[in-house]
Structure formats: C-alpha cells, structure tokens
C-alpha cells in the first residue's frame, strides 16, 4: 500500500487512512484474521450506530488498498469471506515514512538534508 496523502493534524495511522479504516486496521493488526461480522461486533462497541454494510464496504476498500486480503473459507456456519492482513503494522509504518521522505527529498532536498542532519546531531 502506497500512502498518497498525509494529514499533519491527525495522529498515528489516521494521518494516512480515514478514521474508520484506521480503526479497522488497528484491530486487524491485533487479530490478524477476522470476518467482517467479527470486526462489526468489535466496532459496534465503540460505534453503536455502525452497520454491517459500512464495515463490509470499508474492509473491501482496505482490500483494494492492499492492506487486507479476502479469501473464501468453509467453516462452521457455512461459506464466508475471511479477511487477513497483508503487512505488519511495522512494515506499513516503514513504508509511510519511506514514501514521505522520498517525497520530501524530491521536492525539498536541501531543506530535508539540513533538517535531518540537525536531528542527527
């Protein structure tokens, strides 16, 4: 997943993901594998008004972004989609930092070097 925007005012991964998607990813990095129904039950605790449709759409959106992958599983209760993470949180954060620094080096090379050298000292 390549982040395309960075919100300076948001904390953590909400800086690169919309709030609900960020919450879903935080949960998915903890559990690693889950159905949309299980994520719905978790999200409902914090957002009682949230609907299953919202979770399903957002999780498939995260699949499109490459952060989750969807597979069909035959389990108890029948056939269903199971979602799993494609990258660890650490790998994701490294990619974000790398992408941002690359962009800074391309657009503000001198200033970025100067600032990084000041931090290093």
């Amino acid at each position, binding site marked *: 997943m390549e982040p395309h925007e960075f919100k300076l005012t948001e904390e953590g991964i909400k800086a690169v993901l919309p709030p609900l998607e960020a919450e879903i990813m935080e949960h998915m990095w903890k559990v690693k594998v889950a*159905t949309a129904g299980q994520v719905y039950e978790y999200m409902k605790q914090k957002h009682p008004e949230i609907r299953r449709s919202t979770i399903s*759409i957002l999780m498939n*959106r995260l699949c499109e972004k490459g952060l989750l992958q969807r597979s069909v599983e035959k389990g108890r209760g029948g056939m269903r989609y199971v979602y799993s993470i494609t990258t660890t949180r650490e790998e994701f954060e490294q990619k974000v930092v790398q992408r941002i620094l690359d962009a800074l080096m391309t657009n503000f090379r001198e200033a970025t070097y100067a600032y990084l050298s000041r931090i290093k000292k």
Partner: protein
Amino acid sequence: MLYVILALEVLLVVEAFGDLGIAMAGGAMAFLGALYIWATRHKFGENLIPLEREEMPWLYDGIAELAEKANVPMPKVYLLDDYIPNAYSFGNTIVLSLGLFEVLDKDEIIAVAAHELGHIKNRDTKWFPMVTYGRCLMMITTLALLIAGSVPVKGAATVLYIAYELARSDFMKKREFLADETALRLLKIPMSLKRALEELKYYEDLRMNVKVNAVPSIEPGIEREKRFAFFTETHPSYEERILRITFEMNNLMRMKQVR
C-alpha cells in the same frame, strides 16, 4: 402488450422488405432461439459454488421449506464469489452472492431467497429471457428499418421500439413487485424482507457516495458499474419496494385479523 408490439414490428419488417423481411425476421428469431438454447446450457460462471446442505443447513432447509410452501421443486442454490450483496435467479436456480452474508442476518438472507423463489414460482425466470431476446429482436429489426426503410417506416420503427422499451420496463417492474408479494406470503417473518431491503438500500446509498460525510473513505473505486438506463429501468427502486411491502404487510395483517 409486448407480444403485440413484437408482432407489429415483424409485420413492419415484412411490409418494408417483402420476402427479404420474412427471411430477416425468421433469421433473427432463429439466431435468438439458438442463443437462448446455448445460454441455458452455458450459464454457469467460475465464481458459482453449489450449496451443499451440510455447509449451511439453515439456508438449505429454509429454501426447501419455502419451495414446499410455494409448491415448486427445490431450486438449485449457488453461492457467488462476489463481495457485493446480490441475488438473482434463472431457470430453477437461485444465486446468492457471499457479500449478502456479510450485511444481512439469516432471516434477511432467507427473505432475499424468498423473493428469488417468487420469480421462479411466477415463471419470471422463463419470461425474462424471452423479453430480453424480444428486445434484441427489436434492436436488430429497428436498426435494419432505420437504415433501409422509407421515412414513414423509419418513424413507425422508432415509435414501436420506444413502445417496446416502455412496456418492457413496466412489465419487469410489475414482476419485481409480484415477486415481493409472493415472498411475503411465503415467509414466516415477512418483516425480514423489508429489513433486508432497507439494509441493501443503505449499502447502495453508501456505495453511491451519498453518505460521503459519514464514511469519508468511500471513493468511486469501490463502485459497481452504474448502468444508465434512462426510461428502460427494469428494477423498481428500494424505496418503492419498501413502501409496497409495508402496504402489503398491513393488508396481510388485516386479513389475518378478519379470519
């Protein structure tokens, strides 16, 4: 009405082109007949997974119960590997997408299956392909008439084509409502059909970016291809269906009270 328009179209072709018209109409009908036979034999896509009873007894038994009540043979049930909630029927087959199982509960999924069973019971799965092939026939013959016909023939062909589209749209919508009515009579919990449609409407609204402020991450990338139908829309809106279902449920309750 649709047959009358089709008959008039064939007459117009014969009138405009004589023997060639008879050959054209006959050829087009033979081609569409062959296409129908081919399509009915090659209907299954790779994404369709046959439902075994052991996998989801609640679904299999629920549909079997509905079929018995509707006095139709147990339909074949397939699951479609598609995350977007969707259901359709053809022949004596019901297809339910896996996306349905993410957004609806068991009663609501049975309600969606009951609507599709309604189409089977009302023979829509036989009628709908006919109407679609009729539309293909109309397109082919209208095009031929517009290219080679005289000015009055071109005018008549255009009028007949528009009339067919309007009649088709009206027919298909009425059959959708009828399938809902049938489902309401088959279901143990008729309210589940209303609930299912409300959830699917919510899904569609979200998908169509209506509630962009509630969920800022919905972007066109997730959108299904929107078919621009103009006056040829064949499905009533969720609002229309929910409204009709509410009326129908009230009627059913009144009838029960009278009994």
